[in-house]
């Protein structure tokens, strides 16, 4: 019998595909169901963020564009940008503003992780956790809405302060949420995290060893999932994170190898618990009175300088490299987006897995295409 001729099949996953979380295109080279190579192609959502920022005539005007980078964690993006510009200007923001910022950023982290684990369930085929996550995310969005009127793109954290003060019942609302939320995490764990099929699908899949993760400069839950104990909130504290007690969650390989998809997933779930802890402390310590716009400069004209400021967003290290030429508009704003860097790991960890694993891996990296393409 003559030998059967076989050949590899090249297939386009995306840009329109339910599980690429946006307009990502992955060129898959398949041998049956086995992935020989996966080449990501990005840029479908490129909106020239950096070019736009250069043409703004005020540093404050960049903030709405920053919102639209990682549109599911806009607060964290604003915080990073505000901190970068504030460091250039060397302004101190009022105590109360710092607390509100931390509460907002941590609420945003919970909201973003809820979206991440919900859609991850969806990728694996479990539909119900997704809507349960959205139910709880809704409560956070309500808090944001009451503070700034927007639910997705806030333009709330300004350079030197905030756009509005929080409403008078803000603390009660946040306390309600932190009382309501922790039992729900247990619900997710029962429904999804410790489900046998879910574990089978994610454990030992897409293993990212710690040294590879560092070499690729992965950050956030992707890096911590690989067992690297690195969190900018603790290792390079910004704002007032050094005042709070919280644990940095790392993947331990409980269900398989350290750095598999399940580890990246569980890091997100446990980080939500830690965020609740931070919010609890912040609400207790937050001063009741104070002008949130006290330090907002009338005109922002930084000295001729450059800065790289980094913060820990839900997806990892968000860095802003800002160069000022001494004028009112930024000379160069580069956003170092965590997803851009995290996604570049994809080819390295997906070779040899199956098509269904590609979906699991992309989901566990938790990408937002708005931030990758900027």
């Amino acid at each position, binding site marked *: 019998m003559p030998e059967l001729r076989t050949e590899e*099949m090249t*297939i386009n996953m995306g840009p329109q*595909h*339910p*599980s690429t979380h946006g307009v990502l295109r992955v060129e898959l080279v398949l041998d049956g*169901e086995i992935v020989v190579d996966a080449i990501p192609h990005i840029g479908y959502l490129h909106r020239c963020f950096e070019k736009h920022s250069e043409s703004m005539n005020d540093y404050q005007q960049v903030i709405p564009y920053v919102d639209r980078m990682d549109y599911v964690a806009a607060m964290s993006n604003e915080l990073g940008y505000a901190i970068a510009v504030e460091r250039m200007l060397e302004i101190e923001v009022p105590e109360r503003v710092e607390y509100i910022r931390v509460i907002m950023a941590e609420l945003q982290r919970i909201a973003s992780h809820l979206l991440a684990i919900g859609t991850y*369930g*969806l*990728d*694996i*085929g*479990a*539909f*119900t956790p*997704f*809507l*349960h996550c959205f*139910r709880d995310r809704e409560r956070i969005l309500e808090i944001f809405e009451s503070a700034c009127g927007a639910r997705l793109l806030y333009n709330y954290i300004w350079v030197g302060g905030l756009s509005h003060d929080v409403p008078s019942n803000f603390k009660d609302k946040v306390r309600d949420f932190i009382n309501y939320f922790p039992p729900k995490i247990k619900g997710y764990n029962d*429904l*999804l995290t410790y*489900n046998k*099929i*879910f574990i*089978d*699908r994610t454990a030992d899949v897409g293993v990212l060893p710690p040294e590879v993760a560092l070499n690729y400069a992965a950050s956030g839950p992707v890096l911590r999932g690989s067992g690297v104990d690195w969190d900018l909130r603790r290792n390079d504290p910004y704002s007032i994170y050094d005042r709070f007690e919280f644990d940095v969650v790392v993947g331990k390989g409980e269900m398989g190898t350290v750095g598999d998809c399940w580890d990246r997933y569980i890091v997100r779930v446990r980080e939500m618990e830690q965020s609740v802890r931070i919010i609890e402390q912040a609400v207790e310590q937050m001063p009741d009175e104070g002008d949130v716009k006290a330090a907002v400069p009338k005109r922002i004209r930084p000295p001729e300088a450059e800065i790289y400021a980094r913060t820990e967003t839900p997806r990892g290290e968000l860095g802003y490299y800002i160069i000022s030429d001494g004028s009112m508009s930024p000379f160069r704003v580069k956003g170092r987006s965590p997803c851009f860097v995290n996604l570049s790991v994809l080819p390295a960890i997906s070779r040899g897995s*199956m*098509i*269904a*694993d590609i*979906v699991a891996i992309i989901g566990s990296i938790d990408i937002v295409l708005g931030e990758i393409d900027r």
Partner: protein
Amino acid sequence: MVETLEQFLPHPLLAIIMHAALPMVIVFPYVLFAVWLERKVSAHMQDRLGPMRTGGWHGWSQTIADMIKMIQKEDIVPSRSDKFLFKFAPFLAFMGAYAAFAVIPFSSEYIGAHLDVGAFYILAVTSVVTLSILMAGWASNNKWSLLGAMRTSAQIVSYEVPTVVAVLSVIVATGTLNLMTISEMQTGTIFNWLIFSNPFLLIAFVLYFISSLAEVNRTPFDLPESESELVGGFQTEYSGMRWGMFMLTEYADMLLVSLLGSVLFFGAWNSPFGDFMSGPVWGVFWMVSKGMFFIFVMMWLRWTLPRLRVDQLMDVCWKYLIPIAFINLVLVALWEMLF
């Protein structure tokens, strides 16, 4: 029953057509209801309400509206597809599913065809669905469809083995392939049902239910159309009513395996309370309610569980279900010999 109809109708052929169309009276309204139920069940499991507006009470006519919408949609056939196969596949799929209803005893008085090899016929004729899915996947000329179709054929062919062995356990216990005879053997109270007659038949039922889930492509075995991986699997290129036919087939298949399960294990059209509420019309009621119960369980599973990966799916079948099914078959036979 054909004879009774022949007395009223002018031509014997008309009587046969009418006789053949009778299951349609159950299947079509059932599909409309089941799609609505699926939406409601999923909605309530997910803390939401589901359709609430269409038709007034809890959106009862949502699926009717959807069906009208689907009929009105443009019939799109991809230009590079194999046109004949592409158009024919959905009909073949439904034909296979519908043909199987011929031997389901809906009541003590109604069965489409009094075949002595009823159980065998069902297992054979439902395989046509596999063929139609392969046709659809191939004819679409789309790589995702092809992958979906290949997965399906591998899956259904594999899972047919444990299904058949589980059905065989019942046949070993009853000694007949005729589904009507099997139903009649279970007349009496709930304790006459086959599932309680033999402890190993209980295991056979669990095996049957799991593998039938895979045969009708329901979660956790919904790989052929796994939306998040293969876009839409074999139905990616289908739209409008042709897609609706696949949907119809899927739900008809669900009903079929549920009804077969209740015939084989849960007393078919027999009332659980002996003579109380029994009779030909009550028979239809019991049959459909038992079927609906299993369909509800399927929906319940679908909205709870994630999906298996294709290699794990095969592992479950070949490494666990098939060996257990065969051992169980021997044990059923031993039990029948001893007691």
